[in-house]
């Protein structure tokens, strides 16, 4: 809408010298009602998104502690983060580990279930809804608490293991496994990528498979040569969305570790560390800097994905 309007305004200028007054009146007559209807969104966008972002960018160069007015400290926060803060690197490592393992595993699982559901089974809508359910519940506090119960020392998982004679550790409170319980929790929420995969699979024309099987291609070959290539735009989309989600993941780690990132910082997600700095230790300036580094990192990852996408994403044109 704004593009159309600006081009019209340009035309007006070219027509001849226009006084400020008539530009205004044109604005009132043509554009203003549009902006008026956009107002609720604009208020939200500028008041709740752009405003806080600009403020946080400014604060990232200060020592703001919530209680006293911020003092400018230049790039100190960024310098300290990169050179003199082992916890920054710890949290970065935890988050990277989480992203690198949870995203591909979740996507594989989602695709596998989508393939199963795509074989024309009965009651598809029911299964689709059931499998989607964890995605709706996933980030909730209740599920995180349930997870604690399932993976604790005498929880469900170990009770099942005990049936086959294995004495399992307390998964949730053992630093070797605690992060994996969170990865499993993330994989369990495969519903939303699964729905998108399912829609993608439906788009693939069935005559391709018919032709391939006439030529004697095995199921596996059909999957590798037809399904996967034609699904790459969907894989690409899902991968980006899920990567961003994984970077932002906060609630499960917060609830399961009681906000501490323990045991031994093994679940200290980057976002959790950011939260601790901001609201635990009142270093809002430093936390703002952490937030901007995260944004830059997610931006880099996404840009990298887009740049490499032309080598592996096939758009059916």
């Amino acid at each position, binding site marked *: 809408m704004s593009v159309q309007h600006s081009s019209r305004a340009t035309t007006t200028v070219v027509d001849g010298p226009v006084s400020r007054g008539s530009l205004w009146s044109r604005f009132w007559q043509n554009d203003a009602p549009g902006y008026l209807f956009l107002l609720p969104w604009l208020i939200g966008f500028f008041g709740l998104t752009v405003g806080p972002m600009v403020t946080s960018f400014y604060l990232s160069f200060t020592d703001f502690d919530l*209680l006293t007015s911020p003092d400018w400290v230049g790039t100190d926060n960024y310098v300290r983060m990169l050179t003199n803060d082992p916890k920054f690197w710890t949290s970065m490592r935890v988050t990277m580990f989480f992203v690198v393992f949870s995203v591909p595993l979740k996507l594989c699982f989602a695709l596998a279930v989508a393939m199963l559901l795509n074989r024309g089974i009965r009651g598809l809508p029911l299964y689709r809804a059931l499998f989607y359910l964890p995605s709706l519940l996933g980030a909730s506090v209740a599920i995180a608490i349930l997870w604690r119960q399932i993976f604790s020392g005498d929880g469900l998982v170990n009770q099942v293991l005990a049936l086959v004679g294995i004495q399992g550790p307390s998964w949730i*409170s053992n630093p070797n496994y605690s992060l994996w319980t969170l990865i499993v929790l993330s994989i369990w929420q495969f519903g939303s990528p699964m729905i998108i995969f399912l829609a993608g699979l439906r788009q693939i024309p069935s005559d391709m498979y018919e032709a391939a099987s006439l030529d004697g291609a095995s199921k596996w070959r059909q999957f590798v040569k037809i399904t996967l290539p034609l699904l790459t735009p969907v894989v690409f989309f899902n991968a980006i969305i899920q990567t961003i989600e994984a970077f932002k993941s906060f609630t499960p780690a917060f609830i399961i570790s009681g906000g501490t990132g323990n045991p031994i910082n093994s679940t200290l997600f980057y976002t959790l560390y950011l939260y601790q700095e901001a609201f635990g230790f*009142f270093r809002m300036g430093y936390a703002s800097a952490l937030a901007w580094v995260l944004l830059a990192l997610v931006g880099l990852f996404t840009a990298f994905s887009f740049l490499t996408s032309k080598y592996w994403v096939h758009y059916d044109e």
Partner: protein
Amino acid sequence: MTIRLGRRQFLLGSSALAAAAAAGISPAFAQSALRLLFWGGQDRADRTYAVSDMFSESSGVEMAPEFLSWSDYWPKLATQTAGGNAPDIVQMDYRYIVEYATRNAIAPLDEFVGGALKLDNFDPDQLEGGKVGGELYGISLGANSVATLVNTDAFAEVGIDAPTNAWTYDDIMEMAEAFNSANIRGGMKVMSDGSYTEPMLHNWLRQRGKELYTPDGQLAFDEDDAIEWYTLWAKLREAGAIVSAEDQALDSGPLETTMIVLGKSALMPSNSNQLVAYQTLVQDDLNMIGYPRIAEGVGGGHYRKPSMFFSVGGSSANKEAAAEFLNFFISDPEAAKVLGVERGIPCLPSTREVVAPTLDEKGQIALNFVANLGDLLGALPPPPPPSAGEIDASLIRTLGQEVGFGAKSPEQAGRDLVSGAKDILSRS
């Protein structure tokens, strides 16, 4: 963006605009009542709400109380303070009072003492605890002390006497042998892992004549202390006397996740005012004793800590009314009966007299424990520096776990604690 109303086109949207504007400014209208913010659970909230209703009835001042859990409370209070929207009355902790007072986020109350606030006979050490730089910033709502919770039924089951205030760290090992050979309830241990409980380290240091922090906010112990501390617990852990690191890590803060509630240990460090809350979560009978002594007859580790304060918001427009509420809260007899000892032992003798006969058995235990600390009692330590919370969260708790899981030796952890704490203290 400039918006001039009055144009015909704008009439269409004016109602929407008005609604948006109203939504934007509505919080400004909700200021007349006296706002009270505190942390705690439902039980505390019920008592506090009842007392604020009683105050409203007797004084005509409208009250707007609100409560949160401890961990949600501080972010909320800090955010509201930063937004210039702090409540009139806030619950304050010994750990944060200096920070809030020095930043004028809470107001000095000296001008009301003798007027709205009648503090004659108020326990001197509790009054002192609420002072920062000689000015009174917080009114203690009760005294408490660190205490060890004792599951007496478990001791009866093992067949040994439960420890008393005379017990020592050496006793842990002895009792553990009895517990381990009795093997009750799927391997219940005698004691939880206290190595990353800050008050326990503090108590242990005080018995050695040291402190966590000096009055000017520097570290008051050295590497040797820290190494000995971690070695002490490492020995207990290796001997199987205390719960495993894996079990201890299940404790993520809420009472429900602690070792005594999970039934993993029969003894656990806690606070005297929490006995009542823990008893509601445990089937077995609970009692309370002091922290262990470093050797027979050595005391002075405990102190009567102001369990929490009420302070008046620095930007409050109703400081006088807030002070009146504080006075009502600590001295009104009917209010005292409702509040009991849930926030600790009341600091006015007259209030204590009203409360004592109304207490149930567990309340009596708490009252008597704090009143009869005897030689366990030492002087009030200086208020901790602002970054004490960070040292606790990011060093004491983590390093204890690292030793527990074998990721660090006691020597390494001791060195890291001292160097890390010095680093954090120098940064703030």
